[in-house]
């Protein structure tokens, strides 16, 4: 309860939550406001925003409604960002917990693998994965998740390393607890909050990664996504720059919202810095 109160005391955190709710609202209401396929031809191409009340944000090079694509794009961004984050954090916690708790050769092997993933530039690995497995919505989501797990794994490992030698864990061991009990019931609940907060960062990066992929036309071209639209607008950048500009603002706001909420959660859950 204190944490909730602390969260709402920070204007930045509240702003982040409001923005995030707006984006989520857009994703949910997309079908209501724009029942037609957002990728279907809607009108004359390249109508400027506010020029025609039917197309509030104008139309793109092939005459599709930009506003509709922005609404449906919220769905794609949140879906890919959310699921990829879930994948990344799950792998990360698993790897980090095993490495941090057991140490020794298990830690050695797992950390070598983590290091390999971090040494290979994540976007290059993403390109390789897309080159191999193709660019459907599912493969892109999984690929983004796979390139994003090393950071949460390192964080979880660090938490486990420090908690493992904490006296209350040793006490659990002297009481006769098994490793699984110690990991799941003693260490994990204490290690989880920072990792969950970090998921905000993972999600922000995941959304940015997917939009970059879509911008390069390497993501699923059959769904309305912000990155796709920006890539499309690049062809008419000289004059109709708004085609690229509008979805970019949508990405910015979404990533900003996710980061602000993550940071707000962090400050609310770890009030240490504020107390000093």
């Amino acid at each position, binding site marked *: 309860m204190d944490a909730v109160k602390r969260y709402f005391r920070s204007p*930045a955190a509240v702003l982040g939550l409001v923005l995030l709710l707006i984006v989520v609202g857009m994703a949910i209401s997309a079908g209501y406001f724009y029942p037609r396929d957002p990728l279907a031809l809607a009108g004359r191409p390249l109508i400027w925003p506010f020029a025609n009340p039917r197309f509030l944000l104008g139309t793109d090079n092939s005459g599709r409604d930009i506003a509709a694509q922005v609404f449906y794009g919220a769905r794609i961004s949140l879906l890919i960002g959310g699921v990829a984050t879930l994948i990344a954090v799950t792998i990360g916690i698993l790897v980090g917990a095993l490495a941090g708790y057991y140490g020794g050769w298990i830690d050695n092997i797992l950390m*070598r*693998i983590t*290091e*390999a993933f*971090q*040494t*290979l*530039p*994540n*976007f*290059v*690995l*993403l*390109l*390789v*994965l*897309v*080159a*191999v*497995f*193709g660019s459907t919505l599912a493969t892109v989501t999984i690929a983004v998740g796979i390139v994003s797990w090393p950071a949460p794994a390192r964080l979880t490992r660090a938490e486990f390393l420090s908690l493992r030698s904490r006296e209350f864990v040793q006490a659990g061991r002297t009481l006769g607890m098994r490793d699984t009990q110690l990991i799941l019931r003693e260490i994990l609940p204490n290690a989880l909050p920072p990792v969950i907060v970090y998921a905000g960062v993972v999600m*922000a990066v995941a959304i*940015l990664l997917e*939009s*970059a992929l879509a*911008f*390069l036309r*390497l993501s699923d071209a059959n769904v309305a996504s912000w*990155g796709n639209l*920006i890539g499309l*607008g*690049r062809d008419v*950048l*000289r004059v109709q*720059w708004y085609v*690229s*500009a509008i979805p*970019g603002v949508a*990405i*910015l*706001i979404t*990533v*900003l919202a996710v*980061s*602000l909420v993550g940071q707000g959660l962090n400050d609310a859950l770890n009030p240490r*810095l504020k107390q*000093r």
Partner: protein
Amino acid sequence: MRILSLAGRRLAASIPTLLLILIGVFLLLQLAPGDTVDAMMAQMGGGDAATARELRRFYGLDLSVPMQLTNYLWRLVRLDLGFSAIYGKPVATVILERLPPTLLLMTSALSFAFFFGLVFGVIAARGVNRWPDTLISTVGLIFYATPSFWFGLMAIVVFSIYLQWLPAGGFEDIGAVSTGLWRVLDVASHLVLPSLTLGLIFLAIYLRIMRASMLEVLNLDFVRTARAKGLDETRIITRHVLRNALLPMVTLIGLQAGTMLGGSVVVETVFSLPGLGRLAYESVVQRDLNTLLGIVFVSALLVILVNFITDLLYARLDPRISAES
């Protein structure tokens, strides 16, 4: 000397990592639809199955996967990255041609991000929770949330199309045959927007870390000791806080090297820079898997090199490191 041997040992320890990456990506690429010969045949406009078989044998693609892997690694030892069917040149040559723009871009983006991240981080920490801090932190957050390719495009719209201050893309003016200083200036003007674009997100990260690290160090006991000695705030910052606060920043350079190299793929594409990142993109689009694997190898090497340099730097800054060995 001790520092060097320590960093050298870290370097040696990264050989298994490199091997792991190469084997992993090599096996991954075996799953890709189509191989180099398919790409070649497509380039030639098709051909019969006999030619394809002949070519496969010539490139050793008819061998078992483990054999192919062994061959590849053995050629790698001799710095032979294979042949690019698309570019009609050895992969090593193609990559070497594309390396300089990427190295320049990364160096300038990193310097920009590091320097301004440091300065703004210090300013924000000095005025913590007052307006300079709020302003800097807010702008930092917005930078962090800005997709770099979008920022690049908008920068082109503003600075190249409307204001016409800077070129919209390319590495140098192809029309003008310039030499010496003029060429340097020409290249520099082409690198301004890409460096800003690539550096922006890292500026945001560095500034946030520097601010947090400054606040952390300012709370440490030895800062109180410095105050008790009678030092003024400026000297406390310059003599005691800064160097301690820099340590996490240096660590971050190493950690972010891979991310930055990945970011250059997008930025080089936006600004049509003939660099490694753009090459990676092109080889994916053209299914030039040999080149892609070569890029994976070179970029991993680059990241390891950057980490080696940051290790040296860290050990220079922190005497406790060399003592541990």
